[in-house]
């Protein structure tokens, strides 16, 4: 192989490196640097469109939820309320309801009764302030209702995008899926910054001010239960539910993951989740797993119970059951 370097760095150029800089070189360098800077500024120009106050020093310095003092948290919640008021003209009440002692929530869904009307999915969006483009948009709903072919429980042959005139269709049955609040939750295990964790009552929550948006939890979830805010959530002022909680349904920023919390803003205050209340067939049963007399325990002890993807080892707190 011949070796005739048509070189970029000849001994002559090297020698210049040892010499003091010439005036001409300096000027040339300055000119090149200015062109480079101009290019850089031009490339970064879209940043001017950043909303004011979108990234503040306070946000950057804010600690993880579990390291905040009660005063800090109070101040942060108030500033979130003020921000919502300013932007949407609606002042929400943001609280921080703690898990109740002696309570571990469980949810059961009666597959015999569900008719696939998707009222639960819509109620979820209305309650939890998800982003939506129009009244029919339930992409961000925490509930996906699957239309299943009778004769099997096969997700591969199901569809979440069914749209017949009426439900239920004769040859179909329906299976709503939402966060299973797993006892062995893969999503919390993989989060690199502990922005999502299981609370004492079994509910898995997300600190929206801590999440870095890597979406590893979404890859880990076997139930497709997590949603990502690819854009700033779109919601109209009149659609905002003002009863909000820091770890559940407060308005989310863009770029963070969110998920079903069993409506903890309601359930920790003694109410039922929104999806249960709206269900027209009474297919949904919610309650305290630690209370032996609860309805949920009656179901688990007396009905035929099915756990979705039990083989994955997630130990869900969400169960399906059949009437007969």
């Amino acid at each position: 192989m011949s070796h005739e370097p048509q070189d970029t760095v000849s001994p002559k150029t090297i020698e210049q490196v040892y010499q003091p800089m010439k005036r001409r070189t300096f000027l040339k360098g300055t000119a090149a640097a200015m062109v480079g800077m101009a290019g850089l500024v031009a490339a970064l120009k879209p940043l001017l469109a950043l909303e004011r106050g979108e990234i503040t020093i306070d946000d950057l310095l804010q600690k993880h939820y579990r390291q905040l003092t009660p005063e800090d948290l109070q101040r942060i919640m108030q500033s979130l309320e003020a921000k919502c008021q300013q932007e949407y003209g609606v002042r929400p009440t943001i609280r921080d309801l703690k898990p109740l002692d002696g309570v571990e929530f469980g949810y059961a869904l009666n597959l015999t009764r569900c008719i696939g009307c998707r009222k639960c999915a819509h109620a979820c969006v209305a309650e939890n302030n998800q982003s939506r483009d129009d009244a029919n948009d339930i992409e961000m709903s925490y509930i996906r209702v699957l239309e299943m072919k009778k004769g099997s429980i096969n997700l591969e042959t199901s569809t979440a995008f069914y749209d017949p005139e009426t439900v239920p269709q004769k040859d179909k049955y329906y299976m709503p899926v939402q966060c299973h609040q797993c006892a062995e939750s893969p999503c919390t295990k993989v989060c690199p910054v502990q922005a999502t964790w299981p609370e004492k009552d079994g509910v898995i929550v997300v600190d929206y001010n801590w999440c870095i948006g890597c979406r590893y939890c979404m890859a880990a979830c076997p139930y497709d239960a997590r949603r990502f805010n690819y854009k700033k959530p779109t919601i109209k002022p009149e659609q905002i539910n003002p009863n909000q909680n820091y770890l559940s349904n407060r308005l989310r920023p863009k770029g963070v993951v969110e998920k079903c919390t069993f409506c903890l803003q309601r359930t920790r205050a003694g109410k039922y989740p929104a999806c249960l209340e709206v269900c027209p067939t009474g297919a949904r049963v919610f309650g305290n797993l630690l209370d032996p007399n609860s309805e949920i325990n009656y179901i688990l002890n007396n009905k035929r119970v099915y756990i979705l993807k039990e083989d994955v080892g997630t130990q869900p707190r969400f169960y399906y059951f059949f009437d007969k």
Partner: protein
Amino acid sequence: MRDYVTFLFRVWRLSWQGSWKFYAWMTLLSVVSLVGLNAYAHQFVEGLQTSNMTNQVSWGAYIANFTFLVGVAAAAVMLVIPAYIYKKDYMHEVVLFGELLAIAVIVMCLLFVTVDLGHPERFHHMIPPFGIFNFPGSILSWDVIVLNGYLLLNMHIAGYLLYCRYQHRQPTKKFYIPFVFLSILWAVSIHTVTAFLYVGLAGRAYWHHPLVPARFLASAFVAGPSLMILAFQVIRRVTRYYIGDQPIFTLRMIMTVAMIINMFLLGCELFTEFYYPTQHATAAHYLYFGLHGHHALVPWIWSAMALDFVGLVLLVSPWSRRIVGLNLACVACFIGIWIEKGFGLIIPGFVPSALGQIVEYLPSRNETLVCLGIWAFGTLMFSWMLHVAIPIMNGSLRANPELSSPTQ
């Protein structure tokens, strides 16, 4: 210390010396990098809606490129092992270039992860004491450690050896040999840990598979050397640094063996997926044949298969003993593995979704521009490092030069 500042100053001066070809090349790369940066600035403001990712396919081109490039970085070890363990002197001619390549590629990896984040400005949440590090639970935390560790190791080894060369003295063994051996283990670890990112997810049958790390390493030891073979030829053609044929053909042998292993493991995988039809094979079915009328990835994967096959045939045949044949094999293998290990691994993990729904994905224009920008920036870094390293390596840049004319 003062010497070191002088060294840095000279390196800086040298960075701006070069022919018009060098300037044209660097300008081109800078422009593409800036276009990528501009696309990223849009993404930063508007959010990841500028990508084609969805709730169903929540990782895309960024993570695919990241995965592929971790392998390329790890492959630097294929120069280190022959040089330091088998004591092949001719490999010492080039081992430094492998380390420099690893540095540039790891930086690209870190950039690909960063652009994938919804909140990159919260990056410090991963760094104690400012943040909370989910260690040892999260494999992503492990990946942050091993990738940054590998970057530091290579920066130390390459930087130290270059500085000694510049000062014209023998490097002190204890300052670098232990790190060299550590870097061998570390290279294997970066790619294994990256594989574990996927393998650890029991909910995704397509990834939850013990062959994945093994195939990662095998394919990395093809893709990395093929890039180096091409880079070495560019170096010996356009710079005053001689690289013989020996290192190139040593790499050829390594990539041949690795490619045979890679294809064998691929065969094992295909057998497992397709011999007996299970629901776990739906992702593979989607990838190779399409599913329920959706086949966005089918042309990609068959192109990759064809390229892999051509690469393999060239490598095991005498054709690749000639440099043209070898170069063809390198290009075929590099692109083939880039497709199969990037898109071919990441996207079918999400299609069908965990609930069996099919939402297809191909990158958006903006995503593609960001990816191009990062590739250009990596190439820019590598070109720059070579530009300053080669005059040091061939002894023309020295601490105490003998000048032909006295300094003014």
